[in-house]
């Protein structure tokens, strides 16, 4: 028997785009996500409603304001396409997950490179850019409550409560899922207490918002890896 293995790389067929940045602290990341969402919404409307006929590009204005390089002729920049002339497409969304900021859209070849520049301008750095992912991304989460001192668990962090919130009936690990695997649910390891899970979500931003809301209530560290 002969077995052939092909490794396929997704094209622009229904591909998603994601860029992840990391910042010195969660507060800054939150602020960056908030600023970006305003920009993304404004630019989306500028494109869809043909405001370019009369108004300057919000991206250009933003670039000027933050001293970023704006190149409207960059071939690698793209923006989500409208499927109908009557319906404003969903803009890309930014979300802060602790010290990380993600910008994501389910169906676009890429987004303006300037967004990554903005991460650097605010003291962060681009950690990853995933383009043209054909299937929902696999998100690998690791939530850690580190030891307070050598082998001394932090009693003030209710990891069991955190796990229960994640796993609640309307929680992010029970709804809006394509697939989900719980790797570890509150286990004590060499780092401290950990919760590990991996999932593909139907709406990444919606599920990440829920996870962020829950995790922000606890004093834990959050590690995230996204795989196309």
């Amino acid at each position, binding site marked *: 028997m002969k077995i052939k293995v*092909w490794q396929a*790389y997704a*094209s*622009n*067929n229904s591909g998603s785009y994601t860029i992840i940045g990391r910042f010195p602290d969660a507060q800054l990341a939150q602020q960056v996500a908030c600023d970006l969402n305003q920009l993304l919404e404004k630019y989306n409307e500028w494109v869809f409603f043909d405001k370019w006929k009369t108004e300057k590009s919000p991206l250009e204005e933003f670039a000027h304001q933050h001293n970023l390089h704006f190149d409207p002729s960059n*071939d*690698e920049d*793209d923006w989500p*396409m409208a499927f109908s002339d009557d319906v404003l497409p969903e803009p890309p969304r930014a979300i802060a997950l602790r010290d990380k900021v993600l910008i994501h859209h389910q169906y676009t*070849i*890429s987004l303006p490179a300037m967004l990554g520049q903005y991460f650097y301008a605010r003291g962060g750095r681009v950690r990853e850019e995933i*383009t*043209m992912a054909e*299937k929902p991304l*696999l998100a690998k989460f690791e939530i850690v409550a580190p030891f307070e001192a050598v082998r001394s668990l932090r009693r003030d962090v209710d990891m069991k409560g955190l796990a229960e919130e994640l796993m609640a009936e309307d929680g992010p690990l029970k709804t809006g899922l394509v*697939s989900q*695997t719980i790797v570890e649910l509150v286990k004590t390891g060499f780092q401290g207490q950990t919760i590990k899970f*991996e999932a*593909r979500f139907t709406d990444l931003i919606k599920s990440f918002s829920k996870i962020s809301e829950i995790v922000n209530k606890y004093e834990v560290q959050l590690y995230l890896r996204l*795989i*196309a």
Partner: protein
Amino acid sequence: MQLVPGRLESIEGKYGQLRLSLYDNNDWRNKVKELVTARASFGINYLVTPERLPSLEGTVLEMASLGCRDVLLLSYNGPDLALHIYPEQAAQLAKRIAALAKAMDRQCQIKLDVCWGTRMAGVPRLFDSQDCGAGRDFMVLTSDKKIQPCSFHDTFIPFENATDIMNIWRNSQKILGQPAALPGCARTAGFGLTPRVEQTTIGAK
């Protein structure tokens, strides 16, 4: 992968084949020219929808005239019923494709997606099998270590290593041989397409 200037040169010799999907808005004519100029190994994926039926031959001839030597005609798999080719349209389409392939002989290969199934019964094919072979002749391995019979399938079987893959392939043929839930699957009776209103009207006449 986005075909931006310099990309083709940077991946030269590092890939098997590029497939260019043809859309009305992706400037495909210029992309074909770029691929031909770069002597890239490529083919075009063309989704055949009812809207595209009238211009099929013209479009394929244009692809060939631009230098394309490989056209894959795809059927649609998905919930939008307006994009499906229904069996009675398909019978007519099969005759046209057979004629087109004959006319394009040695100039451009016309390939058919396995999901067409028996809808393309009138076209001479390489393998004369009634089944698409998903899960038996080929399988899809996803990045989160799951096996799918094909990329449109709703069945996901977890695996850890190559031994698991072989065991699943050997022992789970019943599951892997099931039709996909998406309309358009060649394994589903009637391809999972709800009969159209016109069909009912014709039947009632």
